Each structure stands twice: as structure tokens, then as C-alpha cells.
């Protein structure tokens, strides 16, 4: 089983070896992060970036680079990586290539949990809100999968319908809570807008360990996840403890989605697009799919963030709008390919 998967179809056009793929992705990520530091409303030179980090002279340039550009150059790739890995696991768990933290309503659930925690329980600390986001994503994952499963199997239509319905339910509750607590509106819009701009660097340090834990759980499960790509009985025949693997994978997905939402808010459709790219690059084995999704997710989110600074220059667009447009088009292409 595993050996067949190893020979599984990778895109015929790309005949790169795995080391080259990883090297290329890492290089791209470094490049994207450099672009994120230098490009924007003002364009800085590499010298100025170097100065800001290693010879901080208190000048405006140094303050902007270290205080504003650096956090987003770190948070964007980390969120992208988290959503990419979460997307891979969600698509495997549901055996559904159009599943993602968005189409399953996980982003919306995490946002709702953040709003509830802040308004109803007075949670203010970043760590507390991050925890709430992960909890919201976890509960939504369980409920959506549970409802879809009891509605007659995890067919693509069922699971997406349930997810979309949960998302609109969450949005409605968020709307009610926000309109009735306008004092906290401004502060919470920060979480709900889906953007990397103006995030404090502390969010990065909060999110990093969570993403690492989620990623490590995913990697530890990679063999079992490989087997789950077939059907349940095959996986069970290969000795995979289905319940335990699913449960742990849910925890990982919730941690990753929660971390991403707590850092950047619901950035749309990253978790849908990235796994497809990762599979084309490294094939179906999760031990490679997950790292490739993390790296590509990082590149994708960072580049989208850079693009967001220029599409309606001089004003900045929220990155969520850009990823939503790209993601929606990819979703259409995926559906049409299934139809063909």
C-alpha cells in the first residue's frame, strides 16, 4: 500500500526530485519573506532592512521595518503553513478534495468562539483568545463531521452543505453579538477581518508552538493518514486504529486552524488551494504532503500579503479578499475537472 502510494502519480510535467522541491520551496519562502520586508507603501532597500535588524538606530525606517513589516513577514507564512497543513488533513479525513477549513466552517467556528470568549467571558489575553479559536475550530470539526456522517456518509455535497450551513450560522451569531456590543466591535474586527497587517509580534510567538504541535501530530500520523486515503476497511485491514487516528487528526486540525485564526483571522480558502499544490509537487504520502503544504502555504500567504499592498495602491486590501478570489476560482476549476 505504502509503496504504491510512493509511486503514486505526481504531476507528469514536474520531474523534480524531492530534495529539489524542498530546496525550491524554502528558497521561494525566503524570497517571499524578503519581499514582504522590503515592498509596500514605501519600498526599502536590503541595506535598510539589514540596518533595522542589526544596527537599529531608532530612525523611522528602522521602526517601520522592525515594528510593522517584521510581524507580518513572520505571521503570514506561519498562518499559511498552518492552514495548508490543516487543509491536507481535512481533505484526507473527509476523502474530499474540495474540503478545507473554510468549506467545513472551521474558520467561522473559530471566529465565533473568539467573539464569544471576548464578549461573554471577558477573555482579553492573546493566549486565551488563541485557545478559544482552537476550541471553536475543534467543536465545529466534530459537529460538522458528525452531522454529515449521520446525514448519510461523507459525500462531497453533504459535507460541504453542512459546512457552509454552519459557517452561515456562525456568521449570524457573530453579527448579533457584535451589533449588541459595539464597544468591543473595533477590537474584534481586528480578529475577523482576515489580514496580516497591524498584528503584534506577540501573536507569532503565541502561534508558533501551537502550529509546531499540530504539525508534529500530523507527521506522526502520516502513515495512518496515507492508509485513510483508501477506504475505511482497507485502512482498518492495515492495522490503523480508525477512531484514535481520526480523533488525533481532529485535534491537529483544530490546533492548526485555531492558531491561524488567532493570528490572522479567517484568511479565506488558503486551506483549499495549498493541499492541491502540495500533492502535485510531492505526491500523496503525508510525510511529504504535510511539509510541502506547510512551505507552499507559507509562500502563498506571504505573496498574497505582498500583493494585497499593491492591488488598490496606495490603500491596502485585506489579504483575505485576495485569497478568497483566488480560492474561489480554484474551487470552480476543481469542480469542473471532476465534472469532465
Amino acid at each position: 500500500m505504502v509503496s504504491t502510494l510512493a509511486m503514486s502519480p505526481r504531476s507528469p510535467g514536474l520531474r523534480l526530485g524531492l530534495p529539489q522541491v524542498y530546496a525550491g520551496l524554502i528558497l521561494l519562502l525566503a524570497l517571499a519573506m524578503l519581499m514582504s520586508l522590503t515592498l509596500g507603501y514605501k519600498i526599502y532597500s536590503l541595506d535598510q532592512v539589514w540596518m533595522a535588524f542589526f544596527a537599529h538606530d531608532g530612525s523611522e525606517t528602522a521602526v517601520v521595518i522592525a515594528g510593522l513589516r517584521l510581524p507580518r513577514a513572520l505571521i503570514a507564512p506561519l498562518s499559511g503553513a498552518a492552514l495548508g497543513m490543516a487543509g491536507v488533513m481535512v481533505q484526507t479525513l473527509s476523502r474530499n478534495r474540495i474540503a478545507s477549513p473554510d468549506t467545513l466552517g472551521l474558520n467561522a467556528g473559530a471566529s465565533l468562539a473568539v467573539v464569544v470568549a471576548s464578549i461573554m467571558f471577558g477573555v482579553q489575553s492573546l493566549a486565551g483568545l488563541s485557545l478559544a479559536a482552537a476550541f471553536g475550530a475543534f467543536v465545529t470539526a466534530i459537529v460538522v463531521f458528525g452531522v454529515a456522517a449521520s446525514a448519510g456518509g461523507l459525500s462531497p455535497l453533504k459535507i460541504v452543505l453542512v459546512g457552509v450551513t454552519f459557517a452561515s450560522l456562525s456568521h449570524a451569531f457573530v453579527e448579533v453579538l457584535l451589533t449588541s456590543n459595539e464597544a468591543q466591535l473595533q477590537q474584534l474586527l481586528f480578529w475577523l477581518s482576515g489580514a496580516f497587517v497591524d498584528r503584534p509580534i506577540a501573536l507569532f510567538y503565541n502561534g508558533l508552538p501551537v502550529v509546531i504541535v499540530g504539525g508534529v501530530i500530523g507527521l506522526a500520523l502520516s502513515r495512518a493518514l496515507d492508509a485513510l486515503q483508501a477506504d475505511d476497511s482497507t485502512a482498518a485491514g492495515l492495522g490503523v486504529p480508525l477512531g484514535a487516528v481520526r480523533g488525533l487528526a481532529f485535534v491537529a486540525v483544530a490546533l492548526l486552524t485555531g492558531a491561524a485564526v488567532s493570528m490572522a483571522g479567517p484568511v479565506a480558502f488558503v486551506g483549499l488551494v495549498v493541499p492541491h499544490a502540495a500533492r502535485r509537487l510531492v505526491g500523496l504520502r503525508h510525510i511529504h504532503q504535510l511539509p510541502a503544504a506547510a512551505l507552499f502555504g507559507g509562500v502563498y500567504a506571504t505573496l498574497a500579503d505582498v500583493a494585497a499592498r499593491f492591488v488598490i495602491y496606495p490603500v491596502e486590501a485585506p489579504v483575505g479578499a485576495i485569497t478568497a478570489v483566488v480560492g474561489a476560482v480554484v474551487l470552480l476549476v476543481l469542480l469542473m475537472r471532476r465534472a469532465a
Partner: protein
Amino acid sequence: MTTLAVTAPAGRRFGIGAIVLIITGLFVLLCLAAIAFGSTWIPLETVAHVILGGGEKTEKLVVWQLRMPRVMAAAIAGAAIAFSGYLLQRITRNELASPGVLGVVDGAALGVVLFLAIFSNESNSLTVSVAWQPLAAAIGALTAISLVFILSGRQSSSAIRLLLFGIAIAAVAKALTTVFMLIGPIYQAAQAARWLAGAVNAISWSEIQIMALCLVPTVLVAGWLAKDLPPADLDDVSSRSIGLNLPVYRIAVFFVAALLTSIAVAFVGGVGFLGLIAPHLARLLVGRARFAGILASMLIGAMMLIGADLLVRVAFTPLEVPAGTVTAIVGAPYFLFLLMRKDKTNG
């Protein structure tokens, strides 16, 4: 078909008539109650008095200028969206179909947001008449549903395919709506955001007039089309054999349904799940009878939106919580319930 009608027991047919009458009665009561409730309570007999032309000046003002427009708008829009949902569920033979799931609502929303973004000037007022807004919504909705059709291609008779593409087109439209709200002037963005959530608060008589003028012919055409709706348990082949030109007929029904929703949505915004639930409840109450079903759907749709608006007015005053949130909070769980129940019966 005729044999069915003839053999239907008289008591059952009387039953349907009685149920429709009861729903109509409830509808009238709810309308009166919705006018009576608010920041100040106006006794029902005063409401009736004012409507019949009497009453004092302040009472007249509150009833005619403040409360009546909301109730009227909610009733008209709710009925139109429910009719649209009824048509879509019947023509796709899928009780999960609705204007929202097929991308019609988000397409209309995109049309309106584009309209607001393009035709507003520096001082944030519209440069053209607001009467053009339903046209923009209709263009958006028709574009969306055409795309859903074209993309589903030869398989457009499969309801599942249509629903999946509808969800995808809705996602695209939603994404573009966000983008255009950001590009447009800030004031328009705030307006659009409130409107997108679905609210009937700031509606005026002139807007209601335009909405009604657009809807009356559409409803008539829809009713004329509805008389040919194939029975729910007839498949494509059998429908063709009784002389229906299904492809053309289907497209006509889809377009009329899209028009109904888009006109309503142009004025009251994205009210979620109405078009899904109202036809359902109607079917539960009156069964498969066609015109009773349409009438009941429209009345129930109207009552749901009036009720939602009444609830947000009474429970959240002075805040303006959009009525669309109530329909979503009620509608989403019902939809999930349907999803779960449907497969139990289908095995």
C-alpha cells in the same frame, strides 16, 4: 394527473382549503401585531382604526411612515423569495435547493454592491435613481445562475451538480463582493455591509412601490409557468413523454425564480434560508397541491420575514440587528435537520 385530482377525497381537499385559510388568518394577525409592537405599543383596535383611515396625527405617523413600510417590505420580499424557493425545489426535485444555495442571492448582492460602488459620487450619494438597483440585482442574479448552468454543462439536470456549482459560484460572488466593498467609498461599504446582512429597517414607500411594480409581472409569469411544473415524482423521461419541453422549460423556471429573488434581495438584502424553509413548511402543511403550495409558501415566507423583523425590533431595540441574522439562526439548524432526515428516508 386529472384522475388523481378526481380521486382525491373531498375531505382532504376541503382540508387544504381550510389550512390555507388559517395561514392567511395568521398572516393578517401577524401583520397587525407587527404594526402594533415597537418602541411604543399601539393597541390593535387603534391599528385597525388608523389603517381604515382614522386615528390621531402621531398614531398615523407611526403606523403609516414608520412601521407599515417595514411590514409591507418584509411581507412582499419574504413572499417573493419563498415563491422562488418553491419553484427551484420543484424543478430540481431536490428539497435542498434554494436561491441561496444556487448562488442567486450572492450574485444579486454582487450586482447591488457593484451598482453602489460605480454610481456613487464624492459626497456618497447615488448619481442615478435607486430605481435601477433591482436591475443591477437582477443582472447579478441572472449572471450567477447562468454560470451555474453553463459550468454544470450537460449534467445540468443533475441537482447535485447544480448545487455544488451553486455553492462555488456563491463563494466567487462573495469574494468579489468583499473586494468591491473595499474599493468603493467607505460610506457605501458600511451601507452595503448592513444591507448584505438583510434588513428591512430603512425602507421607504417609494422603494416598496418599485419593488412591488417589478414583482407583480414576475409573479404572474412565475404563476403561469408553475401550472406546468411536473409532478414531484416524475423523472425527465416521463415528463418529456407527457409533452413538456424540459430543457427550455427548466431554464425559464430557473430564470424566473432568479428574478423573483433578485428583486426582493435588491431591497431587503441577503435574507438567508427563507427560500429554503418556507416551501418546506408549506409542503408539510398542504402536501403536494400546487397552487395551495405556492400560496402557503408565499404566506409562510412573508410571515417568517415579518416575524424576524419583529423579533429584532422588540428584542434588540435600540440596536439595529439585521433581520437576516434571525432567519439564518432559525434556518440553518432546520436545514441541517433536513439533511439528516433526508438520508434516513432514502436509506
